[in-house]
């Protein structure tokens, strides 16, 4: 009778919730990065506190880190001084408080939401938090994972716990299977455009149904990653054989008898057949098409083959279109593209790079288009290079960089210029997200690659013979 969320919640209740006080919830894994942790370390210093369980906290550098090889490995200074300061402060803090840091030159460094699953830090049934809203990503393995603020980062440092109230549950049931050329990114954009950017507020989403269980592990990560874009703090998918196969080869996995014990626990996690969800949404997976955003939040999305709707009576819609320089009723295909960004915690994994490379192989990016491919982690980078994907990108005319958040958020100087149209595989098309005045259209790696070749928004199925 219990949902997976309920089961994990109850396993981690140190003190249950009451009418007067929130629950004290135990946190198994704490991931930190350079942007949202410094003020939390300061708080510890002010109070004379230490990390209660330093072995459960892992640090990486991703948001402010340069992606140019020479600035990481070649001795060139980090171009942005404030970024360099933030990075060295994290190094100092981790050394002082005994936190394991995957530093700038570490071969396992990468975007926090790429390396968590990749290293086996994220396990089914665990509670995992990070001072980063895209922590929802990790729920794809059947973890309860959510983003927190910096004050809460300090709470976890000092107590390994958080004060939390139980969320409502939302089941998103996707039947059928996705058609060829339609990806997990298209599915989640379709879901957000259906339920809205506040459709998940106050809820934890569980994605279910045949179209979801048919997804590979990396695709599931893409879906859960954008749960926050629907306002939900967490998104989850029940662990199954796909999850276990993915986990088995991870460096930090339990081995032998411990692995068998873990499997038994993980097998008990999926929601019971008669579990009650507070709300439920049904979608037909077969009807989902390659999707693209046209506005200034991720819910403003249409099929690549469609047209921008006309909501001219809504001042927010009118403002968004004016910012984007687009017209109501305009078909979105053939819209000019200036920049293509392939990467981020949404779509910076090996399978994403493979699908982009599949479209780009043997072709040249259209003249005037700048394409940037940024792997989600150094391990993704090495794996991609081992199978020659970097050569495909370079020969097509794209830039191939070191890992990091890069142009998704532009904190490291990888930005889109004012007025430029950027087709981006990232997660947010907010005004100025990729640089002041930048115009972001969110798409899948397939659509990004196809559009890079044509220089305009292109349905990837046209180039894939689908």
């Amino acid at each position, binding site marked *: 009778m219990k949902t997976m969320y309920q089961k994990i919640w109850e396993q981690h209740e140190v003190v249950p919730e009451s009418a007067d*006080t929130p629950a004290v919830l135990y946190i198994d894994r704490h991931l930190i990065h350079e942007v949202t942790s410094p*003020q939390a370390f300061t708080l510890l210093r002010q109070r004379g506190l230490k990390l209660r369980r330093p072995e459960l906290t892992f640090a990486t550098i991703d*948001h402010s880190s340069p992606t140019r090889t020479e600035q990481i490995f070649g001795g060139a200074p980090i171009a942005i001084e404030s970024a360099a300061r933030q990075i060295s402060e994290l190094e100092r803090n981790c050394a002082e408080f005994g936190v394991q840091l995957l530093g700038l030159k570490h071969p396992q460094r990468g975007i926090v939401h790429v390396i968590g699953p990749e290293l086996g830090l994220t396990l089914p049934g665990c509670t995992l938090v990070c001072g*980063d809203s895209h922590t929802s990503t990790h729920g794809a393995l059947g973890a309860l994972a959510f983003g927190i603020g910096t004050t809460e980062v300090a709470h976890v440092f000092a107590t390994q716990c958080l004060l939390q109230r139980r969320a409502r549950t939302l089941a998103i049931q996707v039947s059928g299977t996705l058609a060829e050329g339609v990806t997990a990114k298209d599915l989640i954009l379709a879901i957000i455009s259906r339920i809205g950017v506040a459709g998940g507020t106050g809820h934890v989403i569980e994605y279910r149904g045949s179209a979801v269980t048919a997804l590979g592990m990396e695709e599931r990560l893409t879906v859960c990653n954008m749960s*926050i874009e629907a306002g939900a703090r967490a998104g989850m998918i029940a662990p199954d054989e796909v999850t276990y196969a993915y986990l088995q080869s991870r460096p930090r996995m339990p081995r032998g008898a*411990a692995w068998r014990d873990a499997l038994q626990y993980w097998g008990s996690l999926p929601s019971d057949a008669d579990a009650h969800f507070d709300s439920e949404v049904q979608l037909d997976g077969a009807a989902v098409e390659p999707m693209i955003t046209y506005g200034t939040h991720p819910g403003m999305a249409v099929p690549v083959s469609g047209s921008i709707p006309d909501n001219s009576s809504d001042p927010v819609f009118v403002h968004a279109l004016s910012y984007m320089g687009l017209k109501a009723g305009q078909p979105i295909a053939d819209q000019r593209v200036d920049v293509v960004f392939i990467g981020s915690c949404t779509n910076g994994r090996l399978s994403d790079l493979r699908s982009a490379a599949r479209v780009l192989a043997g072709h040249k990016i259209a003249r005037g288009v700048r394409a940037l491919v940024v792997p989600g982690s150094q391990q993704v980078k090495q794996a991609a290079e081992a199978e020659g994907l970097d050569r495909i990108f370079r020969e097509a005319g794209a830039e191939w960089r070191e890992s990091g958040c890069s142009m998704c958020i532009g904190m490291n100087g990888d930005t889109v210029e004012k007025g430029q149209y950027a087709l981006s595989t990232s997660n*947010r098309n907010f005004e*100025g997200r990729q640089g002041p005045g930048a115009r972001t259209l969110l798409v899948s790696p397939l659509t990004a690659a196809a559009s890079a070749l044509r220089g305009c928004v292109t349905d990837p199925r046209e180039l894939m013979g689908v």
Partner: protein
Amino acid sequence: MQPIRQIRSRTAVLPASNIDTDQIIPARFLRTTSREGLGKNLFNDWRYDGNGAPRLDFALNDPATAGCQILVGGRNFGCGSSREHAPWALLDYGFRAVISSEIADIFRNNSLKNGLVPVLVDEATSAWLLAHPGAEVTIDIDRTTLTLPDGRSVRFPLASFDRYCLLNGVDELGFLLDKLPAIEAYEARSAQLRQQYA
């Protein structure tokens, strides 16, 4: 955190819905290691043009909003990133409360932890406030009411724990640290389950 009992102020109004934390404080201002001084970049790209000159059509550049301590925003205020820099910037600028018909979860949590009062109101009240910038209203934490200029009061939801923390200036870390015996007991009873995280 200072105890807060009542906030009485004129409102500044930003009617757009879905005001995300990238608008409240753009990412390039997060390359700081301090929580101080973020107010000067609050709503930076709406407040200033590319040359740093104030945009005269932006509400916070209207001299009438000077000194306003209450910000009224459209539906789904504070969506997007978990950056606590958003409430830090609002507080540093001088705001003490945000009113909206929907407030994003993480922003709401972050606000409460810093003494920025999130006030969730019904659509009709929100519509009235959005249409009447500069209205003098009173937020009463103890009674969890918002009182409009005509004297009408509406209740807003505030969990008793959050209300207690705001009224008494209690910070949650102290509360959590008091739970250490329970945390140790939990660690002991879940030791087997937690072996996989070792």
